[in-house]
């Protein structure tokens, strides 16, 4: 469940205004919201990597809700989606034709067509993502030569922009593949920018407009972190070291608790 942007904004304003410290207008808040959401989103990857060391050394707990690695993995679900890539004959590879921004590629699954003469049933295989150099090496060996059961791929970019994109885009080259192969990729998409939209009231006040606002994509569990980190930046804006210090301490304490 996403974090409601109005809840965050009103809480931030409430804390800031309590002692008449200052005020953050919506435009500034929106900038901070984007920044903080990206900060938190980016932190998942090093944090996940660090916490996963417990798994690697068999020190992770097996409880239902206190496995930190599982918890961090879970927080990525709002950004994770299996997406079909489309075969592009001109580039002999697969491209993403959606409008979102791909952040990372996860598991890639290729489905080989079934209607080839004399061939048996449909073959669905996990495609191994390699570097270009590995791709060449693997393709050269007869024992590891990619087959429908063991396809491999590498990423590059299209020779030219393919509309509606205006710049060359991500291209996945799969071997073996043809125009009839379908490619499903478990993608992580970059977060969409949150926005606290408003209308101006009769007294000139800002009135929250829920229909035009965009909530944070982060999981509801991040609401507290969002508020603290926005306060931290807000403290810098309003030049109040107390706010910065208090928020930074709180953020640090939360992070330490998470990773220990």
């Amino acid at each position: 469940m996403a974090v409601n942007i109005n809840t965050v904004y009103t809480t931030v304003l409430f804390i800031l205004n309590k002692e008449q410290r200052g005020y953050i207008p919506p435009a500034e808040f929106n900038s901070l919201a984007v920044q903080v959401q990206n900060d938190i989103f980016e932190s998942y990857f090093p944090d996940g990597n660090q916490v996963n060391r417990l798994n690697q050394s068999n020190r992770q707990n097996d409880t239902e809700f206190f496995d930190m690695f599982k918890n961090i993995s879970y927080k990525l679900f709002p950004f994770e989606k299996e997406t079909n890539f489309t075969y592009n004959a001109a580039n002999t590879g697969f491209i993403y034709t959606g409008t979102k921004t791909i952040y990372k590629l996860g598991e890639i699954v290729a489905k080989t067509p079934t209607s080839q003469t004399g061939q048996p049933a449909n073959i669905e295989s996990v495609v191994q993502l390699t570097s270009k150099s590995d791709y060449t090496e693997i393709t050269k060996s007869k024992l590891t030569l990619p087959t429908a059961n063991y396809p491999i791929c590498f990423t590059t970019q299209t020779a030219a922009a393919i509309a509606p994109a205006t710049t060359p885009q991500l291209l996945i080259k799969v071997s073996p593949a043809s125009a009839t192969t379908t490619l499903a990729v478990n993608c992580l998409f970059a977060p969409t920018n949150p926005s606290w939209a408003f209308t101006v009231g009769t007294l000139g006040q800002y009135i929250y407009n829920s229909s035009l606002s965009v909530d944070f994509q982060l999981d509801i569990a991040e609401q507290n972190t969002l508020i603290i980190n926005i306060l931290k930046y807000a403290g810098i804006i309003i030049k109040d070291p107390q706010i910065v210090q208090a928020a930074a301490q709180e953020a640090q304490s939360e992070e330490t608790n998470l990773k220990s």
Partner: protein
Amino acid sequence: MALLTENNRQYYAGAQGFLAKSTLANQEFTATFDTDLVFGSFNPLETNYALNNFKLYTAAAGVNQYTEYTLAYTVINNVIKITNTIAANTSVVIQLKSENGGQYGNKDAYGSAVEENWGSYSYITLNDIIDNFMVGYIGDGKLIGTVKKSDVLFFAKRGLQEFSYDTLKSIKSQELSIPPSLSIPMPQDYVNYVDMSWVDKAGIKHIIYPTTLTSDPYRIPLQDSDGIPTQDNFGSNTQGTSQIEKRWNDNNLSNLNNELDNNSFWSNIYGGGFGNGFGTNGGQYGLQPEIAQINGWFTINERTNTFSFSSDLSDKLIILQYISDGLAADGDTRVPKMAEEAMYAYLSHAIISTRANQPEYVVNRLSREKTAKLRNAKIRLSNIKLDEFTQIMRGKSKWIKS
């Protein structure tokens, strides 16, 4: 979940039946055989029809008279979709091709799909081995945290090759006739021979041995009067016809192994001949066990990549048993379940031992594990049964007469 997914009818008869639920076009019937349906064409008049590994039969409701269905249908992902309308309660049967032609229609679904599936439960495919290995042996908290699938594929195929050479059953064999040229080409997937025998009228095998009496030359350069090889217009040595092979082919082999011909040139020179030496005059060396047999010989001609046989085997029926590497055809890439664990151990050891910075005690442990499991697999696959062993050992008290 049980590993058997076919019912008895699917396994033994290679048939699966359906009932059309309503009178509709484009009705779909999903085959659930272990064998994937291979589809070329529905039309017997088309060449690709022969690619099908099954036939489709229908029978009208309440009638037990099946006829082959040759109107339009498609097969995608083991789902047969019949384009035309078929009536409700029509019986539809998919019959995999079998050596006995199946039980439906004209009983002419001839092929080997059913027989190829029989006994398949004793094997596990290499694909399954790799998938199982990735699940059971790779991951956080395990000995191998992460590995590229192409590495596993490489080691699995290398493992299968090694296992094929000395652990797995040698099931490859060909029945051949020896032509007047006395040479037969090596099988397409040949790696090494196990044995070669000619078969008499009673079907009994008589082993043919390789010989060191002659050799097939690898190169036969033509020489000038000074003995210097001559070259063609492209700068390569010109090659002639082997006189050694001709002499061996023309040779009357009874001179070598027939005791009745002791006074021949051969026996005079070599004293007692090459054969068993019984009753020979002036035998100087006595019996040479390696050639004391009358079944004939073969040589491996590395120049022509053929087996060359001695002239007394001309027109003989032979059986060539050989080993391949298990990777020649998709159907071959399977491992007996008796050796499944040995394959996992092989993979673990291969992956860990080729990695940098692995503790040597772990590599050693895996090495010992691999060896022990391979030994187990060999014992299992050597198929020694106590009853059979006892029966053989009953001959131990026979008197050997001299």
